[in-house]
C-alpha cells in the first residue's frame, strides 16, 4: 500500500512547523505588531531571506534534482521584481500626480495625467514617453499575471532552444550565464524602457496603503514570504516525491538511459525549467517590494552564481538543504558585510570582514565542493546515522556514466 505524501516525507511537516513557529516568533517580537524586540529593517531582512530560500528551493529542484546547473534563475527573479515594480511605481506616481493636479483650476484630462506620470518616471533617463512594455503597468491584475508569465515564457523559449539541441552540462551553464549577461546588459541601457541603471525605485511604498506604517507592512510581507515559501516547498516536495521526481532524478543520473526508456527528456526538463523560473519570478516579486529598489545589477550573472553557492553549501538534492543554505549564507553575509562582525587583529594586519568575507565565502565554497559535497544537509545524515562508504570521489562503476559516490547515497 502506498503511504500518504506526508508520511513519505516527514521532513515536510517538520519544515512547515519550524517555519510557522519562526514567523510567529518574529511577529511577536516585531515593532509593528509585537513587543518591538526586532527592528523593522531586520524584519525586512528576515522576510527577504525567506524569499531567497524560496528561489533556492527552485534552484535545488532544477540543479539538485534534475542536474541542470542553471546560472539564469536570478534573471527570472529580477524579472519578477521588475514586473511588480512597474505597477508599484506607476500606481504610486499616479497617486502623487493626481494629488498634485487636484488643486489646478481645471481638472486634468486622462492624457495629461499619463503624460505627467511619464515625465515623473522617465525624466531620469531623459524621456517622458511610456515605452510599449509599460502598456499594462496600470493594471495590477495583468502585472501579477506577468510576474509568472514573463519569466515563464523566457524560460520556455530559452529552454526549448537549449534542450532541443541537447545542450547539457557545463555548456548549458555557460549558455544560461550568457543569457543572464545579455539580459542585464540590455536592461542597463537607458532606452530599454526600464530606466536603465537607475532601475525601479521607491517600491517599498505600496500604493493605497499609505496609512499603514512600514513596521506593520514589513510584518505583512514577512507573512506573505513565509506563505510563499511554505507553498513553494510543499509544491516542490510533492513534485519530487512522485513519479515525475523519479524521472528527473533519472535524467540527472543518466540522461541517455531515461531517453531510451521512452521518456521525453526534453519535455520533462523544459517543464521543470519553466516551472522553477515561475517560482523565481514570484520570489522576485515578493523580494523587491521589501528591498525597495530593483536595478540591472541585481540580475548580473554573479547573483545567480551566489544562488548556486547557497544551494551547494546547504546541500543539493534535498529541499531543506537549499533552504538552510540560503538562510544561513545570506544571513551570515549580511552580518559580515554589514560591518557587525568584529575585525581580527593579527598584529601585523587587521582583517576587516567587510573586505575579507567574500574571500572566505569563495574558499569555503571550494572546501564544500571538495570535502563535503552533501553540504550542511549532510549533517542530518550524520545525525540519522546514514553514512556513505568512503571512496574518495571515485566512480562506483567502470565509466563516467556510472553512479557516483554522492548519488549512490540518495
Amino acid at each position: 500500500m502506498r503511504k500518504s505524501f506526508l508520511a513519505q516525507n516527514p521532513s515536510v511537516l517538520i519544515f512547515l512547523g519550524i517555519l510557522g513557529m519562526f514567523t510567529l516568533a518574529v511577529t511577536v517580537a516585531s515593532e509593528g505588531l509585537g513587543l518591538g524586540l526586532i527592528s523593522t529593517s531586520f524584519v525586512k531582512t528576515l522576510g527577504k531571506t525567506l524569499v531567497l530560500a524560496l528561489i533556492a528551493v527552485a534552484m535545488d529542484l532544477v540543479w539538485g534534482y534534475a542536474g541542470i546547473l542553471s546560472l539564469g534563475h536570478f534573471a527570472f527573479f529580477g524579472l519578477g521584481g521588475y514586473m511588480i515594480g512597474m505597477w508599484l511605481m506607476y500606481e504610486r506616481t499616479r497617486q502623487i500626480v493626481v494629488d498634485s493636479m487636484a488643486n489646478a483650476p481645471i481638472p486634468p484630462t486622462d492624457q495629461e495625467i499619463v503624460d505627467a506620470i511619464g515625465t515623473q518616471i522617465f525624466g531620469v533617463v531623459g524621456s517622458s514617453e511610456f515605452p510599449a512594455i509599460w502598456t499594462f503597468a496600470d493594471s495590477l491584475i495583468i502585472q501579477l499575471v506577468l510576474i509568472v508569465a514573463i519569466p515563464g515564457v523566457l524560460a520556455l523559449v530559452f529552454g526549448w532552444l537549449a534542450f532541443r539541441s541537447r545542450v547539457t552540462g557545463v555548456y548549458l551553464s555557460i549558455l544560461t550565464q550568457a543569457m543572464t549577461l545579455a539580459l542585464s546588459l540590455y536592461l542597463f541601457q537607458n532606452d530599454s524602457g526600464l530606466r536603465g541603471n537607475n532601475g525601479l525605485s521607491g517600491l517599498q511604498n505600496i500604493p493605497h496603503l499609505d496609512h499603514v506604517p512600514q513596521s506593520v507592512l514589513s510584518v505583512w510581507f514577512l507573512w506573505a514570504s513565509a506563505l510563499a515559501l511554505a507553498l513553494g516547498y510543499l509544491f516542490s516536495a510533492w513534485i519530487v516525491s512522485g513519479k515525475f521526481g523519479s524521472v528527473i532524478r533519472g535524467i540527472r543520473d543518466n540522461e541517455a538511459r531515461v531517453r531510451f526508456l521512452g521518456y521525453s527528456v526534453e519535455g520533462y526538463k523544459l517543464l521543470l525549467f519553466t516551472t522553477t523560473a515561475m517560482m523565481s519570478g514570484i520570489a522576485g516579486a515578493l523580494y523587491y517590494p521589501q528591498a525597495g529598489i530593483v536595478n540591472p545589477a541585481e540580475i548580473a550573472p554573479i547573483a545567480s552564481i551566489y544562488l548556486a553557492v547557497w544551494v551547494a553549501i546547504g546541500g543539493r538534492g534535498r529541499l531543506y538543504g537549499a533552504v538552510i543554505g540560503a538562510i544561513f549564507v545570506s544571513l551570515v553575509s549580511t552580518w559580515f558585510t554589514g560591518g557587525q562582525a568584529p575585525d581580527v587583529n593579527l598584529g601585523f594586519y587587521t582583517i576587516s570582514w567587510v573586505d575579507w568575507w567574500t574571500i572566505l565565502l569563495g574558499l569555503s565554497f571550494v572546501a564544500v565542493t571538495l570535502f563535503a559535497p552533501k553540504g550542511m544537509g549532510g549533517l542530518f545524515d550524520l545525525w540519522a546515522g546514514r553514512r556513505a562508504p568512503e571512496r574518495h570521489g571515485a566512480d562506483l562503476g567502470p565509466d563516467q556514466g556510472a553512479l557516483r559516490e554522492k548519488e549512490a547515497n540518495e
Partner: protein
Amino acid sequence: MLKRVIFGLIAALAFAMPMFAQDAAGPMQGILQQHAKIIVKSSRKTIAPAIDAVAGSGLPQAQSVLEAWQAKDMWQRESDGLFFKAEKIDSKTYRLIDFDSGDAVAEADKRDLKQIKPNSGIRALIGTALVKFQLNDPDPARRADALASLERDADKTLLEPLRASIASEKDPELQARKRRLERLLTISYDPEEAARIAAIEEMSSDLGVDVRAALNPLVATTLKIFPGDPPDGLNVVRILRPGKDDFSRDSAYTLLSDAGLAPERITSDAIRTALAENIEDGRVAGVPVHQLSDPAKRVEAYTALAAEGRAAPYLTEAEIDEALSTHSFAEIYAEPSPAVTNAAVAALGRIATRVGMNQTLDLVLDALSLASIYFLAAIGLAITFGVMGVINMAHGEFIMMGAYTGYVVQQMIPNHTVSIIVAIPLAFAVTFGAGVALERLVIRWLYNRPLETLLATFGISIALQQLAKNIFGTQARPLTSPDWLGGAWVLNDVVSISYIRIAIFGLALLFLMLFLFIMKRTRLGLETRAVTQNPGMAGAMGINPGRVNMLTFGLGSGIAGIAGVAIGLFAKVTSELGQDYIVQSFMTVVVGGVGNIWGTLLGAGLIGSLQKGIEWLNPSNTLAAQTYMIIFIIIFIQFRPRGIIALKGRAAGD
C-alpha cells in the same frame, strides 16, 4: 586774376607739401602716413584699408613692414609722426630703422616714441595679408607655415597669389600641397563657373576631409516659405508638400506661424490657461468645470470663449489646410548656380561611396583586432577547456593577475619598454604557478565531474577578485604602453589602426603558432593529447597523467597571464578585468568548437566581426551590441551545437 593765381599756388603747394615729405621719406612711409590715423587707432573694425594699402603697394618692403607690425616692432616717432621699425638697445634707448631703406637712421629715447600695439584680431588680419608674401618666401619652412594657415582659414583674395606661387615652387611636396589647396580654393571662390566644376570633378576622387568641407557648403540648403509658387531664378532643391516626404503638416504650420505668415496654433496648454482664466461660478462659457477633464468638452468651452471674443480664435483643421495650401515650401541651395550644385552633389556621392568602402575596410580592421583580443583571451581556455575539458571559471582572474603583474612591474621599472619585456615572462611565471597550484589543490580531485569543477573554480574566482580588490583597491590602475606602441598607422583620412592593436594581432598569431608547435611537435603536446584521450592507457604507456595535467593546465593559465598584460595595455586594469572577458572567451571556444584551435580562431573571428558589425549598425549603443551578440550565439548553438569545427568520430570523445 592775380588773387586766383596766388590761391592756386597756395593750393598746389598745400597739396604738394605732403607729397614732398613722402618723397623724402620713401614710398612706404608715405603709405603709412596716409593711414596714420587708423594705424594709431588700432581698431579691428577700421584697420582693413591700412593693411590692404601696405599689402597691395607692390613694394618689396611691404612684407617686412607687415611682419614688424605684427610683431609689435613698429613704433611712431612722436616729434614728426613717422613710423619706424625699432630695435631695443637698452631699456631706455631704441634704434630706429627706416622701412624703405632698411638702414638705421637714428637712436631715440623711449619717451619720444609710441609703440603701435595691434590687438590679436588685427594681428590675425595682418597674418592673412602676410600669407601672400610668405607663399613665395625663400625659406621652405615659412612657406609651409603659410600654407598651413591657408589650409586652416582660406580667403577669397588669396586664390590668385596662391596660383601665382605654384609655378615658382621648387619643393615638390609643397608644390603638391599648393596645387591641392588651389583646387579647393577654386571650388569655393573661383568666379568662373566652368573652372569650379572642373575643380569639383577633379577632386571628387579625393577622400580628404577638407574636400568634403569645401564641397558641403555648396550643397547647404535652407527651407524657405513663399506665398504662392517659388519665384524663378532660384536654385531649388525640391518643393516640399506638407503631409508628404517626411514633412509633417504640424511642422509646416509651425514654420508658417513662426515666420508670422499665419496665426499661431492654439496648443492644449494655451486652452487650459485660457479656460483657467475664465472660470465664472464654477463654469467656463457655460460648461461646468468638473466636466473639463474631457478634451472634447475643453474644446467646446474654448470655442465658446473664442466666439465671445475672450480668447484667440480656435483654429480648425480647414483653416490650417487653407493656410498651408496658399504657401509653398521649398529647399533652396545657398549656391546660386545649378551646374555647380549638381556637380557638387555628384562629387559628394562619389566620395561617399569611396568613403563607405574605406569605412568597410576600417571596420574589417577593427573587427580583426577585436577578434585577436578575444582569441588572446580565449587561447588559454582552448588549452584547459578545449584540450583538457576542464572548466576553469577563474580563467578571467588569471588574465587579471597577468595584468596586475604588468602593473606592479611597471611600478618598479620606470622604463616602459624594459618593464613590458620583464612583465611578459613574469606574468607567465605567476599565472603558471597559480594554475599549477589550482590544478594540484582543487581540480585534480574533480576530473570527470565538470559541474563540480565549474563551481569550485567559481569559488576561486570570487576569492581572487576580492583579493585583488583588497590589495589594489577598486579604482582602475594604468598599464602604460611604451612610446613606440603609441600612435596609429594611418592609411588615409578614413582608415587607421593603432600600433597597439597591430601588436596584439601579432601576439595572437604568435600564440597560435606556439600552441600548434607545443601540441603537435613537443613531447608535452603528445602526452597531453594521449592523457586527454585515455588517461588509463596513457598511464600504461609510462606517461605520468598527473604531471602532464599539471603542466598543461599551468601552460594554459600562463598564456592567460600574458594575455592579461596585452589586454591591460589598452584597457584599464581593474579587479573586474577578467570577468569582462570570461563569458566571451567561453563563447569563443564553444562557438568555434571545443578541442580545435582553428575553431577557436574562427570563433574569435566570428564573435569579433559580429560585435563590430552590430556596433556599426547601432553605433551609440555598445551595450545593445553585446546583448544582440549573445542572443545570436545562443541561436547559433542551436544549429551547430558542437561549434563551427566539430570534432568527429573518436576524437570527439563522446
